[in-house]
């Protein structure tokens, strides 16, 4: 996994709350068996509307998504994270994320920064007034900066460390293979097996 320390890019304002994973990537795109190429499914229902923010020329090439509250609710589909990443997003900011989406993002290397809704509103206003506004997201310092605005964002300590180091989960766990084997030795015999 690619390490994440600091990111600078332009941002798209997504003025909607409760964006669930079915909106981020509809079920019809989940049938694929690969890990890439999901960008065409991102917000696909909304992208049919020429006025949708990502269809506007001034928001091409964005890499930061400024979203409304309760982003990523619904299904546990990690494809939502891949779709955002495949499209080019490195960071999503919101005042509240759904837990599973947040977890999936951390593992996939997409940074989800939680900031108060006032900060979201300011960022919305700013990138709507000037779509070229550069947003700087500093994971080391846990800050997001744009124009005169500097705000702290919340990110889980452990997720932050892993993103900074670019560490893969399974590799970390397999260092404790012995502890797992010990635990297996102590499991009660009545626990079921599938075969």
């Amino acid at each position, binding site marked *: 996994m690619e390490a994440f320390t600091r990111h600078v890019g332009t941002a798209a304002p997504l003025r*909607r*709350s*409760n964006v*669930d994973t*079915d*909106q981020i990537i*509809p*079920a*019809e795109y*989940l*049938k*694929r*068996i*690969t*890990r890439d190429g999901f960008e065409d499914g991102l917000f696909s*229902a909304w992208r049919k509307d020429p006025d949708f923010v990502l269809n506007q020329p001034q928001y091409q090439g964005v890499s930061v998504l400024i979203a*409304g*509250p*309760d982003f990523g*609710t*619904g*299904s*546990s*589909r*990690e*494809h939502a*994270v891949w779709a955002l990443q495949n499209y080019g997003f490195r960071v999503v900011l919101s005042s*509240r994320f*759904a*837990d*599973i989406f947040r*977890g*999936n993002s951390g*593992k*996939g290397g997409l940074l989800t920064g939680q900031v108060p809704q006032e900060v979201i509103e300011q960022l919305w206003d700013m990138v709507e007034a000037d779509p070229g506004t550069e947003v700087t997201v500093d994971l080391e310092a846990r800050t997001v900066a744009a124009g005169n605005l500097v705000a702290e964002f919340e990110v*889980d*300590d*452990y997720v932050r460390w892993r993103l900074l180091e670019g560490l893969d*989960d*399974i590799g*970390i*766990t*397999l260092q*404790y*293979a012995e*502890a*797992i084997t010990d*635990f*297996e030795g102590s*499991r*009660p*015999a*009545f*626990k*079921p*097996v*599938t*075969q």
Partner: protein
Amino acid sequence: MGRTLAEKLWQDHVVRQADGEPDLLYIDLHLVHEVTSPQAFDGLRAAGRPVRRPDLTLATEDHNIPTIDVDKPIADPVSRAQVEALRKNCADFGVPLYSLGNIEQGIVHVVGPQLGLTQPGMTIVCGDSHTSTHGAFGALAFGIGTSEVEHVLATQTLPLKPFKTMAINVDGDLPDGVSAKDIILAVIAKIGTGGGQGYVLEYRGSAIRALSMEGRMTICNMSIEAGARAGMVAPDETTFEYVKGRDHAPTGDEWDAAVAYWRTLFTDSDAIFDAEVTLDAATLSPFVTWGTNPGQGLPLSASVPSPDDASDDVDRVAIERALEYMDLTPGTPLRDIAIDTVFIGSCTNGRIEDLRVAADILRERTIANGLRLLVVPGSARVRLQAESEGLDTIFLDAGAEWRGAGCSMCLGMNPDKLTPGERSASTSNRNFEGRQGPGGRTHLVSPAVAAATAITGHLSSPADLD
């Protein structure tokens, strides 16, 4: 200090604990389906890693598979590719799989309990948010993402931070015609789609104790719709009775040892929950959703709300958007909403008791003119059981379609979809925009309301039929 049920289960599964790091939790059962697993198996292959415990892993085909002409090859090439990838992956990695056509095939959350693989005191995961269903047995069961699926396949563990705990107390007697589905829709309407965020919900109280295992599964199933990680009910005699004698249930001395352990699985009287919510069962009535998230629900006797009822601006916009998408006018009585298609099925309400409730109402009646009623059993065994009780005949005589087992119109990944603008009453768990097909409009209901609605053609409860 005492511990909650969730805390007991957690502590019984900790493999490793270190300051500032997530706990490493052992997973007793890993359920797999075709949609969220291919990339996980791909990852294992790329890293040259085996599946650590194929004997604690079980796969089934459910999301993509057709519910008619099941003996023919799957027509949609992408669906077929996913199902074929699952078959190859299971064969390559030694994971047991119940394929379409196998008597044990069905929706993963129906199959686990039915086989007796879902037992109290277990940790159960699946790359599917409705894994919370299994919490009905007093298991800690929750949905995970695909990279976590890969992690569990490779290590049989997951690094996790403890969840907070919330008690949902439902006391009192449910009025006639009010079911588990109405309880959970009322809970979600009360706490909101984000209200359970970060929590394991423990459903408690006399109304929960009085429910069958299937009713408890319906409730736990939809915990995720309140934003919770998991839902659970402490095991009791009803639970033991349900598990006993099933294919994978312990027997003999092991059964006794298991039950002795299961009896320790309850929240201690001096344990403290991080949050508590209380509901009086006696005040509940049939509940339906009018909007585009499961928290947008009201009693059937109510009317479509107005954006003016909103508590704040965010809520106002959400109501406006939902009304526009659902094509509803504020003030319309919910009972006046005309329905095109009724779907009875899914991991929420596709079990035998659900089908019995619906069949009872449909017996010697016919569905409304021009309405489509799809009855889709949750598993092949549920289908066989229903047929042995003659329920299929009741459905067919009423004018319904009687289908093979699978997720079907719950999410419209197979050909069972709503067309744009079509309106459904559905016993499933999600009324998101486009969930049952692009442009489709979904009202979530109980099996009883679904059946009554199919007869009248507009949202109705069985009481409206007399």
